[in-house]
Structure formats: C-alpha cells, structure tokens
C-alpha cells in the first residue's frame, strides 16, 4: 500500500484523518499515485493538480524520502521506499504567509 500524507486543508476536504493508504496498480509514479488518490477522493480533483492538463498547482509541493519531487516528471518511478510503503508520499502546501 502506498502511504500518502495530505495537508490539513485537504484532509478536511476529503474527510480523512491521518495518512491515506492507497492500492495503486502498476508502476508507482507520482501520476499513478495522484490518479488513485483522486479516484478515491474525487473532491480532491483540481486541488492538487489542474483539471485537464494535470499540472501541479503552484503552491503545492511533493516530497518523499527527504527529497523534493515537485519538479520530477510525473511518470518517473517513485523511490522504492514509497512503493513498498516504508516511507510516505507527502503532499505539502508551500509555506507562505505572515
């Protein structure tokens, strides 16, 4: 199972507490994980990636295994530690404000 950590606002929107566990068929990439996440929680469509083109929203970041994967191609396989569920895939709202 793939472990996904959502930011607080998206947890509230999806109505979940804590991590989300997803069964993702096939290759484990950012695209397949996000596709599975949006299929489970359609309310998240458009909040992480744009409708249509699937471009990451500007103030959303993707982290895993202490790496920033936000600029990685969406079809690049995620680290094995994410694919095996050892490490979570983090969806993060960029720090901003004051």
């Amino acid at each position, binding site marked *: 199972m793939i472990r996904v950590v959502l930011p607080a606002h998206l947890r509230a929107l999806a109505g979940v507490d804590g991590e989300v566990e997803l069964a993702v068929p096939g290759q484990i990439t950012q695209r397949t994980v996000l596709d599975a996440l949006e299929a489970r929680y359609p309310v998240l469509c458009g909040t992480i990636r744009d409708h249509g083109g699937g471009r990451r929203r500007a103030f*959303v970041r993707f982290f895993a295994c202490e790496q920033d994967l936000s600029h990685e191609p969406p079809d690049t396989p995620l680290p094995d530690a994410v694919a095996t569920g050892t490490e979570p895939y983090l969806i993060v709202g960029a720090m901003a404000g004051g």
Partner: protein
Amino acid sequence: MTGVRVLVGTRKGAFVLSSDGKREQWEVSGPHFAGWEIYHVKGSPADPSRLFASQTSGWFGQVIQRSDDGGQTWQAVGNEFGYDGVPGTHQWYDGTPHPWEFARVWHLEPSLDDPDTVWAGVEDAGLFRSADGGQTWQELPGLRCHASAPSWQPGAGGMCLHTIILDPDTPSRMFAAISAAGAFRSDDAGQTWRPVNRGLRSDGIPDPDAEVGHCVHRLAMHPDRPGVLYMQKHWDVMRSDDGGESWHEVSGNLPTDFGFPIDVHAHEPDTVYVVPITSDSHHFPPEGKLRVYRSKTGGDEWEPLTSGLPQEHCYVNVLRDAMAVDRLDSCGVYFGTTGGQVYASADAGDNWAPIVRDLPAVLSVEVQTLP
C-alpha cells in the same frame, strides 16, 4: 415571515447567522470550511434550503460547496471551470496580452425559479452556468469573447466578474459587471452581451467616457422595478432609468462618492444604501466614522445613518458583496466589514447593532428571509 439567515463569507471560512423576525437574538454557526477564503455564499430563491458557497485557496484552488439543509451540512460539488474553446488574451497590468486564466469564483447567483440552476462570475472574467446543482459548469463565452475583451484590464483585485443580476420580469435579461471593464447586459439569457456604460465618466482611464474600461464596483436593482439600476463605481454613484442604456450621477451630497457596495430597500425602490469610503488610496471611512448613507429619493439626497455604528477610530472597509437586505415588513439591512464585524439594522438603517464583532475579514454578506 418568521426569520432570517445571514450568510457570511470571510477570509477564513463561512458563517451562518440566524434569527427570528425580531432580529435581536442571533445564533452563530461556523466557521464552515475553516481556513479557506469564502468569497460568496448565496441561497436559492426557489428553495431556501439550498445554498451555494465559493470556497477558494491560493494553494488548493476552487471548491464549490452546496448545502441542501440551510447550511447545516455541505457537500462539495463540481469545481471544473474550463473556458469554452481556446481562451484569448486580455491586457495585463503592463499592457501586454495575457491569457485568460481561471483564478476563483467571486459570485454565485442562483436562478430565481430553478434550484438546480446557478450562475457563477469568475476571475479572469467569465460567466459560467450550472443546471445540475453545481455538479458541472459550462461557460457562456459570449461575454468573454466580446469584441472589446482583448482590451480589458484587471483592477487591483484582479479581473473579476463580481456582479450578476437576473431580471425578474424578463428572464432573458441579465446584467453583469466586471472590474475593470464595466457593466454589460444580455437580452438572450447570457448568450450575447453588450456594454452598457453610456454616461459613466472615469478620470482614471485614458478616455474618460469610453465604452468599456470603467471600474464598476457593484450594481443593484429592485425586483419590482427592474428598469432602474444603481451603480457604485470606483468613484461616483450612478443611476440608470432605462435598463442600463444610459447612466447619470446621483452622488449628490455624499461626503465621498468612492465605495464598494450598493443596495436597495426591499419595499421602497427609491431607497438606496451606500457606504462611502474615503478614496481609492484610503480604503476606510472618512474621518474614521463608519456611516451608511441612505437616499429615499433614488439618489442625490443622502442622509448619514450612524446610530450604533462606531463614530471614531474606525478604519475598516466594506467590500462590494458585503451588504444585503432582508424582506421582512420592516426591512433589515446588513453589512460586513474587513474588521470582522457584521452589523444589522432591523429598521431600514435607522439603528444598527453588531451581530458579531470578531470574525475574519468579511468578503460577502447575503440574507435569506425565511417563511
């Protein structure tokens, strides 16, 4: 008529304020969607239990929420606002062409007679419609594709379609207003549009009486007299007696004619309310005194309403969608401030009291009069 429900959108969530017909004791519910900007919440005239809310975030984009029980529970509905076809360009702040980009929904206008139909005014300026209770949205591109649209420029707050008015007598007629393009009218239910800005004069644009380019802040109409429109422009309070074909200024004796909201008494089509703001560079009331101004003559002659409102050290603003009236026998008037106060008057503005004092900055106020 047994009560009212005040729907408040703020920078950090939505609030529902409820009272009986006396409008003295209030029950406060919220924050709903805590932490999100709620640009607008409005109920369906055809089914008061049905509410629509525009929930937005710079991080996570647009969500539309719908309640079918008067705001007790909510469900997210459709949030895909795709412009029809390949969007063209409008002018950017530096004068260069800039592609149309959806940013957020500023205003939701439910149909007068169908609870499943609702209109949405969005930034960058466009008009959308849902006929399935908000599940799906389709643009009516006639407005965005108007021949003048490539010359439109955003105001400081973005290029937003912030006002939608449906004509109750002529269902095919509707009005929209865009900052900073101006007022537009459709006579075919939103398919085609034309500017209705004749008589406006704006010194802040190169051609002061241009057909488009005016920063219209708000339009208001009384449902019993839909040919008469009132407008709060960036500067100037205006009136049209011919469905927007021409406008004349009715600022009269206002201390300043800059402001954002404008509204009309529920039972007196000639009674109009504005909240004068010092200037475009000082978005707070003149002299630190929060005063609603009322005209009982359809403009020109205005009286300050101050009872119960702070008359010193008050430096809040009242935004364009943050004033509304109820339809009880003694018309109630409501407005919210950027300081988080929502004020109510149960006697048409003669006396005011805060319902709440410490909400986040108020973006919008709507009122439902409940049977």
